[in-house]
């Protein structure tokens, strides 16, 4: 029993440290590649590590009219809540450490917690610009949660028609049974639409261009984060890095859970190594197309446009995907 617990703690530390480091590296790649696409040299890939170290030694200013305890607590809540998500996701081809203790529905709720923490931190800052940013973040959440929920529910429901009685919302079950090979042509089109919806929700979840509306440096001077500095800002920075890994891993687990070890006939340690490497590439590809390419190609949209975009076309795409999957199963 104590050996099992020790093993779980050890694995937990690896997940926590590994997820954070990975997020920082992907953040560095994001900045480097975005710069290269724009004809700039860009910072070194290790730049996010320097940024966090620098933030930790900078002064941690709390504005005069801020609600101090809330203002200081929210960066910690944001980081801790987003880090818990790593434990419910299959990472590197391995089963989720807490796979039996939480499913996709829990992940849907947990994804909202870091954003709510940022909203509360923004309101607690006692600054008009941070308040406007916090209001925008709330509207963003209300906008993208619906298509995200439709995507998750459609995948779980479709799998339930093939595997009645199974825990179809469990990430382990979803990752072990990719739907691409199960459904017919209509279902494949439905899955493509759901995948597209998730890829558009991803930059919104991460508050990246064109959905960096709550921060909007050129309009509201960083908005929700305008007053944060020093070590509090470092916590939000780390939370953002981990959330990038979470969204990439979630997309991979739901739509591309395949490994390479079986294909090349490797097992054991070498099989794990090649599966981990393949997982890192898959997460990178998701981040590359959902975040890096999109933020280089588009300008920031307005909050009203974002609400309309998610409630009409993107919800429409995800509902159409759900309808096609339903038709595929019953027609």
């Amino acid at each position, binding site marked *: 029993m104590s050996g099992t617990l020790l093993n779980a703690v050890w694995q937990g530390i690896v997940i926590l440290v590994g997820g954070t480091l990975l997020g920082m590296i992907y953040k560095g790649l994001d900045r480097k590649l975005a710069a290269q696409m724009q004809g700039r040299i860009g910072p070194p890939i290790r730049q996010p590590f320097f940024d966090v170290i620098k933030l930790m030694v900078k002064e941690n*200013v709390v*504005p005069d009219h801020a609600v101090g305890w809330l203002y200081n607590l929210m960066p910690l809540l944001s980081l801790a809540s987003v880090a818990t998500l790593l434990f419910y996701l299959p990472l590197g081809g391995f089963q989720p450490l807490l796979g039996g203790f939480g*499913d996709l529905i829990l992940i849907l709720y947990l994804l909202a917690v870091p954003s709510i923490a940022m909203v509360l931190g923004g309101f607690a800052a006692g600054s008009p610009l941070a308040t406007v940013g916090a209001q925008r973040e709330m509207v963003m959440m209300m906008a993208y949660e619906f298509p995200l929920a439709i995507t998750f529910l459609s995948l779980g429901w479709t799998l339930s028609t093939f595997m009645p009685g199974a825990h179809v919302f469990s990430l382990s079950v979803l990752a072990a049974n990719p739907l691409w090979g199960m459904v017919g042509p209509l279902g494949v089109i439905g899955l493509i639409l759901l995948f597209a919806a998730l890829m558009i929700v991803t930059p919104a979840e991460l508050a990246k261009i064109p959905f960096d509306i709550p921060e909007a440096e050129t309009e509201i001077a960083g908005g929700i984060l305008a007053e944060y500095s020093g*070590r509090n800002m470092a916590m939000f920075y780390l939370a953002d890095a981990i959330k990038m890994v979470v969204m990439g891993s979630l997309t991979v687990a739901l739509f591309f859970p395949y490994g390479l070890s079986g294909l090349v006939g490797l097992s054991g340690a070498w099989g794990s190594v090649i599966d981990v490497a393949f997982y890192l590439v898959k997460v990178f590809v998701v981040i590359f197309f959902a975040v890096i390419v999109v933020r280089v190609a588009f300008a920031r949209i307005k909050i009203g446009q974002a609400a*309309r975009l998610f409630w009409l076309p993107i919800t429409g795409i995800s509902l159409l995907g759900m309808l096609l999957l339903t038709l595929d199963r019953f027609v």
Partner: protein
Amino acid sequence: MNGLTSGFGAWNPIAWALLFVGILVVSFIVRSLGNKGYKRGTGQTKVFLSGNEEPDTPDALHVRGDHLYWGMIDGLSAYYRRVKAWHTGILSDYVAWFVGVLGLVFVILVLVR
């Protein structure tokens, strides 16, 4: 460790709470390694207002609550215009809507069955 099982998935709130508290403690320790100091009562602690004079009272910095859902209402203005027009404030109208929707749900249920 027992949790909640829906038949389609599971959630164990105690496991999540333990994990959350554990990571919160780790995050707190990491943050405490950073600099906690700043210069109180200086211009540093005035909020950023794009170069405008910062007022001394919090009330003067307050953003009203009716702006909260502005983005949503503006983005879906066509929908809200129509829905607001239906809100007459007359109780019998709301009861009529309730009965009508209930009837529609029954018809759908009968059709589905």
